[in-house]
Structure formats: C-alpha cells, structure tokens
C-alpha cells in the first residue's frame, strides 16, 4: 500500500487574469470618493485605452508633427514638464502656464489652472489648437489619422470600424488619462495600515493637517476648488487666473488647487512654475503671502513654521511619492508598431 500525498495546485488563471484585467482598466481606491467622470458615456476598454495612449505619445497631433502631449506631460515626472517653468510648444513658443501633473483626473470636475475646461474629453482640444502648444486643428488631426493605415487598424480594433472621428480621438485620449491613478504612495500604505510613518513624517503630517489640508484635501490632496494662495502677480504674464473664465471680480488671482501627490517629481511649482523646490514653496507659505483682496480666508493668519518643522513637513510630503505610478510601464511610450 502506498501512502499518497496529494499536491493540489490551485491555479485560478481565469480569475487572476480577470482581476489583473480589471486593475489595468480603472479602479477607485478604497475610501476615495466616487469618480466625477461619467464612465457610462465612455466605458473603458483595453483597445481604446491603448489607442489613447498611442495618441498621447504621437506628435501627429501637432501641426508640424513635432510635439506630442508627452512633451509637456512626461510620464517620468507624473506627467508634467520638468525642465521648464512655462510649457514649450511648437516652434519653441512659450505658453503662459506651467503644465500641471496629470493624475487622478477621473475625480476632477474642471481642468486647467483656471478651470476653463469643463470635461476631460474636451481637454485635448485646447493644446491641439492652441498656437503656442501644438498649433493644429482637430479637423486636420482627424484627417491625418484617417489617412494612416496604422491608425485605421487601431480604430477598427477599438470601435469596430476604422474611421477616426473627433469624438473617438477625444474619448480615447480620455480613456488613457483616466487610467493614470496614483494611490500607492507610502502615505496610502499608512492609511491602509500596511505601513507606518516615521516619527518625523508623523510630525509633518500633523503640521500638514493643521495648515495645508483644507485646500490640499485628502485623499486627492486637492479640494479641486479655486483659491488665491497669496502668490504675487507676475508683472509680465499678468495672469489673473479664474476671473478669465467667470469674469467675476471675486475670482481674481484664484487658481485651481493642485494635487500634492508625487510633489517630489512635479517641480517647478505653481501655475507659472516660479518655485523650483519644496523649500521655496514652504518659504512662500510662511513669509511670502501677499494679502490681495481675494486671498483665501485660510491664509489670512500667518503660518509659522521653524526650520525643523519645515523639514518635518517636507518629509511628510515626500511620502506622497508613488513609485508604482511614476514608473508604471503601462503608462509609458507606445506607438502603433508595438
């Protein structure tokens, strides 16, 4: 008689790949609010995300085929433009604003520093047609795509026929951008009780909660509102922010509160990229606030932080770095030959 030991391998390939597949598309992290983006009008699909990703990296979207979205929104810097305070566009022209980092856009209700864009789908129209940026028209982009065999195949796979349209181009780019979710920083592990803060980080978190979190609100680290955080008006750029959209005096010098996630990598900071380091930003909040009429109530009272507290706060801000986001191969360059 043999004594048999049974080794049973439980292999759930089907289930595993299903989970992986779901993850790849989109997931709202635990405890986060419901996304604002209406997925029913543009439900995520692998082939559409892929098409959007290829478009994002393809200079075909610009007039002289030299500039892609990624020129100003580089994947290695949480999708912002690092070298330049103000974004460079076609023919080396310089725009008036710093390109924001792109992440967790499914939760945003408006886009651009002044909220001029009301829907993620419509976002790409601005850079495509803005002269300083890509200098192209969506009509012509669509024509170029319709003439490309590579794109015909991609559109066919994604939409069941090979025709490129404005709607499909925009929705595909949205699909890719919607997948850019950053929710895996050390901070997140701590919140999900999978790690703990160092003493210094913890001190920094306390300082953050007291002084910063009313605008840079968890879990997105932005309340997505428009605020005046006391920056002096740049005499050359004369950028008054939100008032351009609402034409209401109470919105003068207000800008959309940016996220602080991955802040380590998204320098230079502010709408015009005026600060190069987190240190400079903190000095602004402690000593640089200009009391314009529209300065936020929350900053009327001076923020006092000594050198140690600034270091603590910075240490905390660095826990918002999400390596799995920054170096995610699923977000990187792709062209249609791949």
């Amino acid at each position, binding site marked *: 008689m043999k004594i048999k030991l049974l080794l049973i391998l439980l292999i759930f390939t089907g289930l595993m790949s299903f989970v992986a597949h779901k993850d790849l598309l989109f997931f709202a992290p635990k405890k986060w609010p419901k996304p604002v983006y209406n997925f029913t009008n543009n439900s995520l699909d692998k082939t559409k995300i892929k098409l959007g990703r290829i478009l994002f990296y393809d200079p075909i979207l610009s007039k002289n085929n030299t500039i892609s979205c990624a020129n100003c929104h580089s994947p290695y810097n949480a999708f912002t433009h690092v070298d330049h305070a103000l974004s460079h566009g076609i023919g080396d022209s310089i725009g008036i604003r710093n390109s924001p980092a792109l992440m967790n856009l499914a939760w945003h209700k408006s886009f651009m520093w002044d909220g*001029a864009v009301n*829907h993620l*789908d419509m976002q790409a129209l601005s850079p495509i047609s803005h002269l300083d940026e890509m200098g192209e028209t969506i009509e012509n982009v669509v024509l170029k795509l319709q003439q490309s065999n590579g794109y015909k195949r991609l559109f066919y796979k994604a939409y069941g026929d090979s025709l490129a349209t*404005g709607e499909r181009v925009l929705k595909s780019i949205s699909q890719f951008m919607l997948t850019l979710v950053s929710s895996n920083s050390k901070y997140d592990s701590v919140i999900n009780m999978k790690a703990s803060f160092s003493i210094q980080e913890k001190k920094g978190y306390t300082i953050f909660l007291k002084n910063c979190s009313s605008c840079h609100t968890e879990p997105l680290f932005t309340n997505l509102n428009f605020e005046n955080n006391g920056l002096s008006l740049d005499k050359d750029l004369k950028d008054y922010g939100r008032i351009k959209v609402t034409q209401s005096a109470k919105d003068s010098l207000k800008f959309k509160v940016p996220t602080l996630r991955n802040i380590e990598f998204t320098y230079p900071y502010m709408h015009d990229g005026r600060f190069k380091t987190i240190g400079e930003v903190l000095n602004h909040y402690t000593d640089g606030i200009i009391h314009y009429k529209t300065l936020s109530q929350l900053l009327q009272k001076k923020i006092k932080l000594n050198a140690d507290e600034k270091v603590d706060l910075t240490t905390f801000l660095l826990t918002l770095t999400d390596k799995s986001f920054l170096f995610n191969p699923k977000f990187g360059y792709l062209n249609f030959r791949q």
Partner: protein
Amino acid sequence: MIAHQSLKLDSLYTLFNKDSIRITNFKFYISNFTFLKNGQIVFKEKNSFHLLDLKDTNSFKIHIKSPQNYTQIQFCIGIDSVANSAGAMGGILDPTKGMYWTWQNGYINMKLEGTSSACKTRNNEFVYHIGGYQYPFNSLQSLIFKAVNKQNVTIGIELNKFFSDVNSNTNHTMMSPSLQAVKLAEIFKTIFVIE
C-alpha cells in the same frame, strides 16, 4: 419641416439701408424640438440636435416624425448646458464640425461670417460666433410657435433683420461668451418668423 432658404453664400446683397453685405459662412444649431397641445407636451424629439449649414442646403430641411395633434412647436437655437457639459459627442456634435470652441469651453451656437460695407474692419469683415452656456452668458434661445397640425412648417430666417438690429459698424466681431453675445443671440432669435 422646411426652413425657407433663398439666401446664397458669397452673393452680394443690398440691404434697405443701402449697406451691401456678403455672407461667407452661416451655420447654427437648433435643438430640443417639442410639440405641444394647449401647453401640454405631446411629443419631444429624441436626441434633438440639428446643424444647419448654408453650405449644405439640405441641412435646412429637417424631418421630424411628429404626432397628429399639436398646436405649438417649441425649439431652441443653440446647444443646452447639459450637452455642453457631457464630454465628447459624435455626429453633428463632433468637435470637428467647427462649432466647438477650444481654448474656451463649449459649443458655438451660431456662426455668421461675411463682409458688410458698414463694418470699418479689415476687408469690411464681420465675424459673429455666438455661444456660451453658463450663467450669466447663457446664449441658448428658446422659441415657440403656433402651428396647428400642419404637414409642413416653414420658418423664415430674416437675416436682413439681424443686420438692421445689430449695429455692425461697431459691433462686428464676437468670438466668445459675453453679455454682448447674449444680446446678439436674443436679436438672432427674433429673425425666425413662421410663414
């Protein structure tokens, strides 16, 4: 329904006040067709968006399957705020139709471009791009007509009236939402006349 169309692109017309005008581009949206009987809605066209473009005279013929009994027809000139905030759409609402602003958000409800001897601009050009969907610059206009159970309803669009009510001498360029654009939209609405 047929909207009467005798105006031709690029032809020269002389207005009553002797201004000579030429229209080089004229496009606008109408939307939300609703049929009413004694104030009660009896029918609403689904997905009711129509782009009328003088380049394509067929676009001025709108076919609607409507119910038998109605006394009034209501529709809007322009695109409402819901559609303006819904993200990318296809068909005649596709942003490649040249009726979507880019740096500024939202649909252009009406585009009217051309030349007029009254305009003291380069080449006497005028450009009216009328749009805006957010308060206080909401330029969507709603129209309601009496029309009792007709098979064909003809609506006149009297552009001459637009030019006599708008002082194109000073008011010749409009390309973003503003209070003035809303005024122009209100004038534009008055030139729709049932025949």
